[in-house]
């Protein structure tokens, strides 16, 4: 069976060009669909279950990073193995540097045939080693490997995308947060030591302490850069929790993980990408 792929790229000419270049570099590859925005990329990927994804990082609706994170959670691993992910970007020098050594890949626009051939080679190797002949243990291992790759790729691309922002005091961890009270006009200074978790909701981030809820408007990406990674763990694309507040981890029938926090009643979902944090030692 021929390998299959999906291209997500919002600029029609560039999508067309990538498809053409892929046709030359990898004639057997069958491009199942081309999506013009992040949301339809997720939808089409879940419908067609391709083996390779070429995702533009900047897309309307949902950007490439967000679309990949959502796919990681919603991918039906019992129907098809997790796809190989390749980010496509016009300009992202930091991400490019970070990707240089990675197994799966990024492609810099305009697509250079030689560079693309290298990517294709890596993809072919990855796909060849992926075919688990109905051995559940091997399949698990392959999934874990792919997830680890995705995690690295998302982190590298995220770091690249975030470095474009003015990240003042990126080194010094945040001590206080100026946050508005939910539903009010008052801004409070919230000591970071009281925060149990952050949750991205639409345009806001909810800041939750044991007793109260506040709102801030900083993007999660930017906030993460200012948090101590030892103290706060990202467990979901929209949730960052205080590691010391985690009480218990539960696995439901579908295999999804949830966290109980000391001091909060909510159940916190754990994304598949971050499930490795909670594997028993």
């Amino acid at each position, binding site marked *: 069976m021929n390998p299959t792929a999906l291209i997500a790229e*919002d600029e029609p000419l*560039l999508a067309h060009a990538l498809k053409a270049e892929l046709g030359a570099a990898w004639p057997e590859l069958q491009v199942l669909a081309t999506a013009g*925005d992040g949301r*339809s990329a997720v939808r089409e990927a879940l419908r067609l279950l391709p083996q390779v994804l070429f995702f533009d990082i900047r897309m*309307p609706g949902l950007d490439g990073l967000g679309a990949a994170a959502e796919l990681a959670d919603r991918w039906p691993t019992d129907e098809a193995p997790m796809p190989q992910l390749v980010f496509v970007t016009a300009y992202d020098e930091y991400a490019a540097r970070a990707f240089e050594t990675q197994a799966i890949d990024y492609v810099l*626009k305009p697509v250079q045939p030689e560079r693309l051939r290298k990517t294709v080679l890596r993809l072919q190797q990855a796909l060849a080693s992926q075919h688990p002949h109905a051995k559940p243990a091997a399949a698990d291992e392959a999934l874990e490997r792919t997830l680890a790759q995705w995690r690295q790729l998302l982190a590298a691309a995220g770091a690249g995308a975030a470095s474009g922002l003015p990240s003042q005091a990126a080194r010094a961890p945040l001590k206080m947060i100026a946050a508005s009270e939910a539903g009010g006009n008052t801004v409070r200074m919230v000591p970071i030591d009281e925060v149990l978790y952050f949750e991205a909701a639409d*345009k806001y981030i909810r800041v939750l302490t044991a007793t109260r809820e506040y709102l801030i408007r900083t993007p999660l990406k*930017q906030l993460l850069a200012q948090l101590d990674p030892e103290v706060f763990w990202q467990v979901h694309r929209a949730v960052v929790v205080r590691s010391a507040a985690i009480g218990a981890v539960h696995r439901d029938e579908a295999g999804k993980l949830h966290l109980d926090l000391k001091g909060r009643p909510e159940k916190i979902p754990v994304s598949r990408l971050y499930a490795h944090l909670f594997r028993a030692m």
Partner: protein
Amino acid sequence: MSVGALPRFRAENIRSMLRHGLITVAFCCFIAAALAITQHGDWGAQMVYSLSIGLISWLFIDVGRLLISGHREILWPTGPWGYLLVAGGVLVGFLGGNAIGDAWTHQPLLNFSSFEERRLATTIIITLTATICMCFFFYSLGRSKHMRSQIELAQRNATEARLKLLEAQLEPHMLFNTLANLRVLITADPPRAVAMLDRLNNYLRMTLSGSRALAHPLSAEFERLADYLELMSVRMGARLRYTLDLPEDLRDTPVPPLLLQPLVENSIRHGLEPKVEGGRIAVTARQDAGRLVIEVSDTGVGLDANQPAPSGGSGFGLEQVRERLATVYGDQGRMSLATAPAGGTCTTLSFPLPPLA
């Protein structure tokens, strides 16, 4: 707390203090020499008196000013504290210096009554005048150094603002994506590639020289907008539609170059790009009671959605337009932001039309 940890005792300040000390020593030697010559006194004794008084005053005042000036840029205490410090320095220097000098010449300690009145008065006057002069000298030195650094800072800020403007116009994503598109067109559709290259050429030329010219005709401004929008519509395909509406009689009205550019860019970046189905941008110019009114409206995601992304650059673009309006037209220039009827954003600029020539 160690002394080194205090920022005001950082190496640079200690160095300038030692420099003051050396100048003081030189000055004291000069006074001692002058006194020794005019009063035919003992060179050694004059030197000891002069140096002791000078160095004690210097130490007292220079250390004192660092201690009580806190973290101010000009390291000098403000208000009465400054005068008190000098007075204290004079007093301590005078008493201490005389004590050392007296010990050196084996006179009874601080036995001022043994002085002739005239000599005592002379010493006091010399100490006072010298100390105040030196203090004023060092204070002016420090202040001029501070002023110089302020001027440098202002120049740096201005340069940075210009660079930021240029960087916003030549945003790498825009540039590289445009080039990537161009590369595709070169093989797929050469005539269109040539047209796009010409647009890019115009756009770059304007961006790089735009900050230098003071004004150009409104028609030229609209042409540059057309270049930019055409480039963007090659990239965005059917997701971007636009109309430019410039009445014939307003074509020659002078406007600051690239005034409208940031507004159109905002419409695309914060209005249409995040919107999956894209939309329409309309730029219109009209005349209204002796004023020129320019409207940039889009059917994008709208105002509220813009706001949480100040880091995306919309703040800088708008701020820049507002500042330029204020520079050219004073309080006669106006800019307002509103939600467009179709749900997007509508930015309106207005300023007085220049009288017809």
